[in-house]
């Protein structure tokens, strides 16, 4: 009986994670490597979902996805109270964690290395794939895992834009809420345990990858022949 919300949660999280990766990486690259007017405002706006109440994020999404919104009029998407709406909510709340971690990681890559790649014949996409991305991969991966974990745990905004329809939009966190309301403590216990385990694993994984694989040379590199 808990499998339906588990599968739905995985579906929503998978889609959200894909968009968090693509949009987050693009935003992180732009924010880390260019300067433009309003950059700080953009950074702040991206981070807002971290501190806003989920109901506020949900309300904005209702406005954006509801009837009468220019977006809906223009595209004709009617996705309120369907699982894609839950995926959008999950993307919005997971994005800031991805952007912050990847931006920091990309900014940390020495621009001289990218310049070296350019003089060695690499086009801009090649510079990104062969130099920037490999060197920033730990931070990017950490950001992605955190963002995905946050997407999986999304509750408030999802409730507002996707509702709580069992089998259609009821993700794990919503199912837990329902189970507790209906005093189905066995189901609640199973789902709570599963969520806790997933969150624990995600955070443990992030800690692991943020520790460098090879210890950096503490003092002098061994001096054989110069």
């Amino acid at each position, binding site marked *: 009986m808990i499998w339906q919300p588990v599968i739905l949660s995985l579906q929503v999280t998978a889609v959200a994670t894909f968009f968090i990766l693509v949009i987050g990486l693009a935003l992180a690259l732009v924010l880390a490597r260019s300067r433009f007017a309003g950059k700080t405002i953009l950074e702040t706006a991206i981070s807002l979902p971290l501190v806003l109440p989920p109901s506020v994020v949900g309300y904005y999404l209702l406005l954006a996805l509801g009837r009468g919104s220019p977006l809906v009029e223009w595209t004709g998407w009617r996705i309120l109270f369907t699982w894609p709406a839950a995926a959008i909510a999950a993307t919005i709340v997971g994005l800031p964690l991805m952007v912050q971690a990847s931006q920091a990681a990309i900014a940390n890559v020495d621009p001289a290395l990218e*310049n*070296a790649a350019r*003089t*060695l014949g690499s086009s801009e996409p090649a510079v990104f794939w062969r130099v920037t991305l490999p*060197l920033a991969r730990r931070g990017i991966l950490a950001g992605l895992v955190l963002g995905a974990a946050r997407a999986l745990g999304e509750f408030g905004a999802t409730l507002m834009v996707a509702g709580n329809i069992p089998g259609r939009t009821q993700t794990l966190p919503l199912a837990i809420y329902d189970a507790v309301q209906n005093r189905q403590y066995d189901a609640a216990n199973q789902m709570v345990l599963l969520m806790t385990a997933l969150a624990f694993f995600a955070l443990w994984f992030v800690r692991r990858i943020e520790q460098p694989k*090879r210890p*950096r040379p503490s003092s002098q590199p*061994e001096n054989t*022949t110069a």
Partner: protein
Amino acid sequence: MSDTRLTVDIEKRLAGFRLAVRLEMGAEIVVLFGPSGAGKTTTLNAIAGLVTPDAGEMALDGRLFFRKHRSGAVVNVPARKRRIGYVFQQYALFPHLTALENIAYALWRRRDAHRRAETLLERMGLAHLADRYPHELSGGQQQRVAIARALATDPQVLLLDEPFSALDPAVRERLQKDLRNLQAEMNLVVLYVTHRLEDAFAVGHRLAVLREGRVEQIGPIDQVFRHPINHHVAAVMGLRNLFRARVMDSTPEGLRLDWDGLRLEAMPQPVAAASIVTAYIRPEDVKIIYPDRPLMSAVRHNQVIGKIVERRSQADLQTLCVSMPNGHELEVSFPVHAYTPLRLTPGEDVRLSLRREGLVILHPS
């Protein structure tokens, strides 16, 4: 100098000053020398295509790779297509790649990449370190990998930015010799940026002195050093004891100068009588005359008694600041190990000779 291959004539407005560099180079090592902030690295970046000049032209073997003027088509070959080897200041080796992979980077998708990278590594004497990551290499080894990487695509031009300044002297000397050999072997156009005059002497065929964004003087190193074209160049080269003097007499036998009342004799140099010139004498060409020693011919001329103002000691050199009768100060230096019966402390008088051969007139620019 062999035939001109690389020509650079560019301008760029930078914070604080304007870069306006003109250079013509053949297959040789030209040392771009100047104080930090003179625009040396920006010049290299512009040639490599990492910085875009506001205007100008650059060509290699007659082919334009950059042109931008008020009117006319803009040519700006991107860095990746210029095939100009660049050795960066801190080497900029890719930390996630091994020595071999760093060298093979530019050979990506080439069938012989691995073999060619191995050949280069061998040429640099690093074959046994192929699988080491940059942080597992010493500074000198990293520098060799960086040079090999820059040469992987067979560039015609090699740019080096302060390549050996972070290395200890023995390693530096070996690498400088290596670089000269490489240049001759591969017939490269090498532009070598440094702020250390010793490096310039060790590797360069010609010296270009850059100051505030301009090439003040370019020529064989010895010539630039001996005959700085103006006092800016002299100052950049670290020359002391610059002064203005009036030429009283200019004959094939020699010059007679008047330095604010002090009469000096100098070797014949092409200046007109009665002109005002800038001259200098190196501190080591000002000799202290010891009363207990016979007067050698070298110190016969230009004797003067001054008062010691200051005494400084460096590792192997003593420097005196001496106040002259004409009111100016002169720096005098002599080796630490020189035996001296004189006290040479501030306040003491000292008899000096300004070597006739050491008095050099700067060529007016």
